[in-house]
């Protein structure tokens, strides 16, 4: 890489913007933040070298390709890092960057487009011989499509999943259990897909019941080399949104995981993949594994892989995007120990994880010590945005053994104090005490099958309540208990 000082625009907000800004700064480059007005106080702006106000938002300006490219050009940035969410997997955005002579930190627009189309992606993987959940291509329109669907269901049995071809991130998926449902669901699914993704294509997949969600982190340079950084397990989810991710997978079958990793590399190569990506698989109860999709972005849970491999994925993303060859070989990747990431959200788990938008973080006190990593946007005084996500901070802990890692997690949760909004912390406190989790035994049905996790005292902290009382005595000069 040349010695000249590069400038990279971070087209995102929240904790991932900070994560990327840190990597840019560690490379000796300059980071440019962009923001919408509701984010004017955000920490990511404070940390960047410079910042550009995109507009009033909310969300629309972070999604405004033209404004972002114009901002990059105005500040003289050479590259754009899209983070996750917003425009990260929008092939048109990648294409616009390419056309504007800006480096898009991610795979090419063509690869994003191919892999973003689930049916094309399935075709590529089928051709490469990657095991896949039985499924259809895009269903035809009208009666013909329904016949195709009913025939598929007859051949493979219910339940099946009806998926939007352009969907992703857990959205645009519905379960179908009968012919009647199929008949009624297809038109609804199409209408929704059109509204959400601008494309009404849908297809079917056989539903794998209560699988484990295992994914493989991939790094690929522009010079034909692809390697993997091992597995992650993201089975603990609510409504298809991940809450806890671990690395490596606890499936306990090294040969199987090795095979999955090799399949992931093969899949990435088949797709012509460059930069960092994630190949997602399902593992069923009989230890069959199936390709699900490739996520063409940095993922929230990349931290667990970084902790066990010692490899900075975001730093590699940037270097690869600037055309550098991979500086490591597959043999250099030696995962060590276990890592757990907990997404600490300002949400009420008891109330269906309802976000606590509008509330202020009155106290923020984070844990520290050996093997603890925090990636957050939160600070004392932070107001939970009503218009963006409710992720406050990701806590990633690393330990030599699984047991040590779980115990470290528990210790850190007890050291964490966040007062103001409700958070997922007390819920996680229950998880790290729960025997199945401690045994490393969980799949995507974990939350449903462990309803006891939702029983906890809202504010276990006596010191919070008592402090409030002391503040009242202090403030009110008249003390009702002293008269």
């Amino acid at each position, binding site marked *: 890489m040349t010695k000249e000082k590069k400038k990279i625009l971070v087209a995102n907000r929240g904790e991932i913007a900070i994560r990327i800004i840190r990597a840019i700064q560690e490379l000796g480059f300059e980071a440019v933040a962009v923001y919408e007005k509701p984010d004017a106080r955000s920490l990511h702006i404070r940390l960047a070298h410079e910042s550009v106000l995109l507009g009033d938002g909310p969300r629309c300006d972070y999604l405004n390709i033209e404004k972002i490219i114009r901002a990059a050009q105005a500040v003289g940035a050479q590259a754009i890092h899209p983070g996750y969410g917003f425009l990260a997997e929008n092939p048109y955005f990648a294409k616009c960057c390419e056309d504007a002579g800006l480096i898009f930190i991610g795979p090419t627009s063509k690869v994003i487009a191919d892999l973003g189309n689930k049916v094309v992606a399935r075709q590529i993987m089928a051709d490469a011989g990657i095991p896949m959940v039985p499924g259809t291509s895009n269903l035809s329109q009208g009666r013909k499509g329904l016949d195709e669907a009913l025939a598929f269901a007859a051949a493979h049995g219910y339940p099946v999943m009806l998926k939007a071809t352009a969907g992703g991130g857990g959205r645009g998926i519905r379960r179908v259990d009968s012919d009647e449902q199929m008949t009624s669901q297809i038109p609804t699914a199409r209408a929704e897909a059109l509204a959400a993704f601008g494309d009404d294509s849908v297809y079917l997949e056989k539903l794998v019941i209560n699988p484990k969600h295992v994914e493989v982190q991939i790094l690929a340079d522009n010079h034909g080399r692809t390697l993997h950084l091992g597995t992650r397990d993201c089975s603990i989810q609510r409504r298809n949104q991940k809450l806890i991710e671990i690395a490596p997978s606890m499936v306990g079958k090294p040969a199987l995981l090795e095979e999955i990793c090799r399949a992931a590399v093969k899949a990435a190569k088949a797709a012509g993949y460059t930069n960092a990506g994630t190949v997602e698989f399902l593992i069923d109860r009989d230890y069959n594994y199936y390709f699900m999709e490739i996520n063409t972005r940095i993922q929230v849970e990349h931290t667990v892989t970084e902790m066990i491999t010692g490899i900075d994925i975001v730093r590699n993303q940037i270097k690869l995007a600037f055309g550098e060859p991979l500086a490591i070989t597959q043999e250099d990747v030696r995962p060590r120990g276990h890592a757990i990431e907990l997404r600490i959200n300002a949400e009420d788990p008891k109330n269906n994880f309802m976000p606590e938008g509008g509330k202020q973080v*009155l*106290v923020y006190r984070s844990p520290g010590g050996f093997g603890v990593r925090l990636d957050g946007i939160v600070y004392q005084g932070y107001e939970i945005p009503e218009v963006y996500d409710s992720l406050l901070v990701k806590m990633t802990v690393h330990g030599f053994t699984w047991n040590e890692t779980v115990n470290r997690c528990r210790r850190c949760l007890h050291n964490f104090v966040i007062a103001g909004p409700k958070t997922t912390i007390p819920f996680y406190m229950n998880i790290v005490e729960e025997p199945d989790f401690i045994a490393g035994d969980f799949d995507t049905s974990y939350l449903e099958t462990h309803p006891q996790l939702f029983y906890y005292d809202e504010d276990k902290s006596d010191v*919070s309540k*008592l402090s*409030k009382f*002391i*503040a009242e005595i202090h*403030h009110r000069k008249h003390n009702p208990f*002293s*008269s």
Partner: protein
Amino acid sequence: MERIYQGETPAEVTRRLRQAKGYYITNTARDMSQSDYKNRILLHTDLLAAPSRERAGYFSLEITGGASIHVDLLRKQVDPFVKLQLMRQAMPTTMFQTLCRGVNLFGYRPYPQNVIRLTVREFAPYVDVWRTFDFLNYVPNMRAVFEEVALAGKINEPCICFSTGPEHTDEFYVGKVREILDVTGPDIILGIKNHGGLGTPKRIGQLVDALKQNFPDLSVHYHGHNTDGNDIGRVVAAVLHGATIIDASDAAFTGFYGPPPVLTIIQTLKDEGYEAIGIDEDAIIETSDTLTSQRPYYDQFESQIRGFQPTVQTHKLPGGAMGSSLEQAAKGGFLDKVPEILNKELPRVQRELGNYWSVTPGSQILWTTAVANVLSGERYGNPSGDLKNLLLGKYGPFPFYQPEEWIYQKVLGDDWRHVLETEGGLHENPDVDLAQEKAELHEKMGSEPNNQQLVLYLQHPKDAIAFFKFQEEYGMVHVLPPSIFFKRGGFEIGESMYFTDPQGKEHIVEFGPSPVDDTGVTRVFMNVDHYQRVYNFQPERQTSQNNQASVKLSKEEILDLASAGDVRAPFSGAVYEITVKEGQEVLKGDRLVVMEAMKMQTPILSEVTGIVTGIAVKTGGNLHTGDRILKIDLV
């Protein structure tokens, strides 16, 4: 002789008491707190004293009962059951004692049988010795408690309430004890409840002597108050004549109306050749050394009038009611009338109302009546509901004689004979539907109550709910030391305080500035364990019911306003009854509302003649001193 330890059976305890060579001591911490500190001594302080009190070797520690349960909830914000649990942890071998008002339990009015039984059952696991009394010495009123205590395997200590006067003869009391023994059987301790500290040492000696002559196997426990400064004399006389257990308290906290200091009694009786069984004098001295540093925090709760009151022999106000009565007089602005009330009116009312025992709730009736008689100028013109109930016999029969007919007429009206005939007599309160009460409590609390919470709710519905809500919001505030809990006027910037949370972990609080912003919001900055916390306070608004800025008014200002027809609350309390209507014409001295504070109902009388307008209160509403009650347009 060995001390008696917690956990021994009633039969074993009474057997050992009968054989005792010497005497045992009960540390009456609860009564000391109630009599001299308005019941406000905190659990925090009792826990500081616990290790040395445990080693002191008392027969028992009286730590609950009386008015303390209500005050725990209302003023100290501590769960009376949690208090007992924590005290038990700190004092595993000492028996705990309660004071139970029989059918009136720990409250002020008779309760249904099933409430009494449930209450005893819930408290019994924590309370070893049950001192039970009835202010009319009416034994049937105590029966349910006796039965439940026996069922729970705990020790019954039935009391005869003691007073003086021509009717209060040894024969009378011996008869009462026989009545009690007929109900309870022999394995009890008999309490002499000298709540006023009445009679001379000689008189107490005679009474104990008479009891021992008639019931040689009965162990007598003497309880007295030092109101006249002479209870040590009475205690000594009681022991010399055969009492086996006596009441006293720690010297560091002794005042004027509570029990006498324990060490003085030990020293005096030692010279008489009597040994205090199981007692470690060093531990008693250590307790007072520990408590000495705490006493200044309680200065504010000591009585408005200090000094011994030898006149108690005339007015007979019990030690446990001295503090609250004088507080009421101070808050009501009639401290100047107190000598007249105590020395003239109260003795007169006592004689007129049958010379019964001036103890809760009977003492409140006597006091309230005497106060109303003096303040209104018309004797028995403003009778309280409780006085009516007394005359109707709702508490039980008069022990010696009935009041004269003119009193019935004044209190119950001209058709008093009819009222007495139709409404009079002792009717057992019908059982309440406990499941339904529990459901109601569940709804009010927002969570499933346990039986302990139900018991508190059944006795003090409003205050228990307020306490449960308070605790949910602020947690276990009983861990706070008095230096924080009683702080008035706020802390200094830079000042730091420590407290230990319920898990035993110490925390440090440092106080920062409290700037006020443009909108009037105060931001209170505090460092807790070195992390900053900020608490926002809206500008103070009216918290009581009449939505009007509560202005701090002095007693004089309240009186001035009252004589202009603007009637304000003379003290903080609840509206018990509104006796006038909007537009009604009232005369000077007419009763407007009745307020209730602590256990006393106080009528608020009109200072002027006029028309009632703008009633700003509702029955049951809470008022702070100076809050508007109503207006009277002068005519």
